[in-house]
């Protein structure tokens, strides 16, 4: 029915089957929309956040999806700036993923703040010392860049191509894409870093406070590194998942291996830096704040195992797997390692957001727990459903994997 809309040379499933695939996600989207409506209408008392757990699932989600969405900037950077042409095979998909991650994050952020109508005050009365100001500026600018990067992919769609002026626009955009990729990289560096700085500057919480390197805390750089490492892994992972779900070969295996290699080396550097940072933090920064580092891991739910899990199991292990050519050669290991890498970054964001707030600061504080309410979870799932829906539609009607056509022929 919708064949005229599907790009030439691509084989897609029938519309009813496609709609069947979309249906559960649409239902989830509707549930999430209801939860978001409740949060706007009734207020944030619909969540299980409180004065002590001021950040919850949503902030964790924001940090994680933005870290995973880093694939967009890093792939763009490798392709347009470092001229790694083989990445042309995944760059469209990476851009769509990035766009979805960032727009989802901003959407959920608007639900998370108590007065969304005042969001623009950050531009009106910016506090230049705040990491969140940096994040807000870079996020909004970068979302714009992503939209511009997404535009050519949409403009090349079968119907829009027919409009000559749009085609010209697409062509022009394509010529300047390197500039946007560079701008995107710059912006991404800053906001990924600022997101790390968000916790690194909190001198009230010795658990998350880090010594400064220059004007930024060390987590600023660690977040850039970890996001750059996890981004390609996430692109790899999604490409593999989409290929499995659609039962098609989408890119040549070398592309995935290259992504894995990039991810692996970056992850290795990250794990090294993280190790050094942790040692400095545990032995110098936190004792200076009057806290014994052992106390961070003195509570049953968050023992030292979590540090081990984050740095070794979900850091060093995937890094070593990904840098090893033999491991990369086996798709199973490659995918497993990149999944571990993504989980590692997600765990890092979890520790930064949740453990920081769960740990007591005052002598008479208790260790706190928090579990999200259904509204929070549903709003979280809204973003997931939104991502899946938009990606699915993009995948069906747009050319996300330019190599797919050749591979289908061959």
């Amino acid at each position, binding site marked *: 029915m919708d064949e005229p809309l599907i790009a030439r040379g691509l084989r897609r499933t029938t519309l009813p089957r496609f709609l069947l695939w979309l249906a559960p996600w649409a239902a989830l989207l509707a549930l999430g929309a209801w939860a978001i409506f409740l949060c706007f209408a009734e207020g944030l008392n619909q969540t299980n956040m409180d004065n002590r757990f001021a950040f919850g699932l949503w902030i964790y989600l924001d940090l994680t999806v933005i870290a995973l969405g880093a694939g967009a900037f890093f792939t763009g950077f490798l392709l347009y700036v470092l001229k790694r042409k083989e990445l042309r095979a995944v760059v469209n998909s990476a851009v769509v993923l990035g766009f979805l991650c960032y727009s989802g994050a901003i959407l959920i952020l608007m639900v998370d703040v108590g*007065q969304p*109508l*005042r969001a623009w*005050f950050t531009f*009106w009365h910016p506090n230049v010392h705040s990491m969140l100001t940096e994040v807000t500026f870079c996020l909004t600018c970068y979302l714009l860049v992503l939209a511009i990067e997404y535009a050519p992919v949409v403009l090349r769609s079968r119907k829009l191509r027919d409009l000559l002026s749009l085609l010209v626009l697409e062509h022009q955009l394509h010529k300047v894409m390197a500039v946007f990729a560079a701008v995107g990289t710059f912006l991404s560096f800053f906001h990924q870093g600022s997101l790390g700085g968000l916790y690194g500057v909190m001198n009230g919480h010795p658990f998350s406070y880090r010594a400064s390197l220059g004007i930024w805390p060390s987590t600023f750089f660690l977040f850039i590194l970890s996001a750059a490492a996890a981004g390609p892994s996430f692109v790899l992972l999604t490409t593999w998942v989409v290929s499995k779900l659609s039962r098609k070969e989408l890119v040549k295996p070398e592309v995935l291996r290259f992504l894995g290699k990039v991810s692996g080396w970056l992850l290795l550097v990250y794990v090294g830096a993280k190790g050094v940072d942790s040692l400095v933090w545990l032995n110098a920064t936190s004792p200076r704040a009057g806290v014994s580092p052992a106390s961070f891991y003195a509570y049953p739910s968050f023992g030292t195992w979590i540090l081990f899990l984050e740095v070794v199991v979900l850091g060093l292990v995937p890094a070593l797997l990904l840098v090893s050519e033999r491991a990369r050669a086996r798709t199973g290991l490659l995918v497993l390692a990149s999944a571990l890498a993504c989980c590692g970054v997600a765990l890092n964001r979890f520790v930064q957001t949740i453990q920081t707030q769960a740990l007591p600061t005052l002598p008479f504080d208790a260790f706190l727990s928090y579990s999200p309410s259904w509204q929070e979870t549903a709003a979280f799932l809204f973003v997931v459903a939104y991502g899946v829906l938009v990606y699915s539609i993009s995948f069906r009607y747009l050319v996300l994997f330019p190599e797919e056509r050749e591979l289908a022929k061959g």
Partner: protein
Amino acid sequence: MPLDLSRRDLLLAATGAATGAVLSPLPWKLVDDVAIWTQRPATPTPRPAGPVALRPTTCTLCPVACGLRVRCFGDVPVSVTGAPGHPASGGAICPLGLTAHHLSRHPLRARTATLRHARGEEPLSRDAAVAAVGAALARAAHAGRPGGLLVVDGRPGRPLSALYRAVAAAAGGRYATPPRVGPARTLAALSRRSPEPSLTLGVDLAAARRVVCFGAPLLEGWGTPGLLPRLRAGSRRRPHEERLEVVQVEAVRSRSAALADRWIAPVPGSEAALALGIARVLLDEGLLDCRLVESRTEGLEGFARAAAPFTPGTVSSLSGVPAATVVALARDLAAHRPAVVLGGGDPAGSPLPDETEAALAGLNLLLGSVGGDGSPIVARREGPAAPAGAPPVELADVPDGSVGVLVLDGHLSERAVPWSRLLPLLAPSATVVSLSPWRGGLADHADLHVPGLAPLEEAGDVPGSPDAAAATLSRAVALVASPEGAVDPAVFLKESAARASLVLPPLPPSAVEGVFASRRGRVVDGTTGEATPVGSLASPGALGELLEKGGCWVDDPAPLPRGRLSFLAPGETAESLSRAALAARPAPAAQRAAVAREAVAAAPPASLLTKLTRETALRTPPVAVAPWRA
């Protein structure tokens, strides 16, 4: 000249205008307006009309009668603070008092007289209420003793109390007061030991160096809010030996126990054994001031006999308190006189048994803390309200089934007198009249509920705490208009009595007249603390004026009690004391229900006060209001 405008010109002009507009202040103004719109608070703070004034009055929530300053905009009170120079409260007030101005708008505030019967309830007009209560009083007067009138006063000593007694006398009925609670019971036990039948005692904590509380929530603010912590902290500047220390003897770790310098946790019910054990150590080790004890007391041998079985070892096995602790406490008390021992309650919040209070009274006599120069327990004169009318009886002395008409005072709290205590007193088809300003609690059991006045609505002279070292009198001023259907109980009762054709005996002179006639004491200004001797005042009117302006009359110290206090009160024997102390009662498992002041105040908690129980971890939630009797 024809103007030749092309479409291009128009477009250009439009573009230019648009660019100009963007560069003009207009968009910024627009943005700013939006900013202001999003900044608008949801509820604008109302600005009440009328001049701002800090108006003096007296708190009527509990018997302490703290001096208040109420910030009013016209007749709208917006905050309550303590009167800084007030002698009864020293400028302190408790959280209940801080929210007093919210109480007349409390959802439980009764706004109209109500008649309850089997089919439900119906509102009554004021006239109908007077007629109904008048009819009930007439019926009671006619019936005589069984089936007669009982008035239960929640706060004896007020001008209204005199009227209650007059009405009770005219109707041939009784006037009862609720059982005394807290340290007042220890004072009552001591009064019973005096040859003077009318000796009243008060506590002067400032005179003590050791305060031992058997369950009394003294550090939580029993009596004057914050008094004991203030005294204790103030004494820290003195040499170590002269400091005031507080020992809390209580089975549960209450807030007072946590705050005390020492906390001793005996098995509940073994308090008397512990007190007699301390007494025995004092006697055995000769830690008494023999001359003092001999000159002021008699019957020491009997008390020594009562204490004889309570060696530290026995006490330890009875109470679970190590023998060494008992000995050390006794020595510490003896070494740091003046020391005072005050009873309070057991972990369930109910009073200690009489035998325990007797043991505590004996301990006070042994320590020489009563009635001497500089003793913590001093004699005081009765308050200014001269006694007249029906003599007060204790509720326990009212026979079951003897009450035909029960009148409940508005200050009677259900925690002080539970309904289960009153119900057996009622004769079949008795009428219960409540004058409580609140719905809920005892008022929900009343057949006739005639709402009285809430705090800040009440006006009149307010006597101070009966436990204080000296009698005081200050004045409450009506700052808030009462609801249409509420009545001034005094006016209402007089009208009802007239309707019942009761002839009231002459009421005693007003408290102000009484004070003026006595020429005793001084009036202390609540703001400046300046004192004016009553003797220097020209008329009762001048005295009333000073009270109206927030002054507080304080009685002169009373002379030392004549006659010696006996260790054993009439009807007590050494054997009965030690027998009761040996038979430690089984422990009531319940936690202490609430802080003392909340138990005494009949008013429900204001919504802002519930912040403490719901939004901080400070207190256990107050007990819920009793549901309507089925």
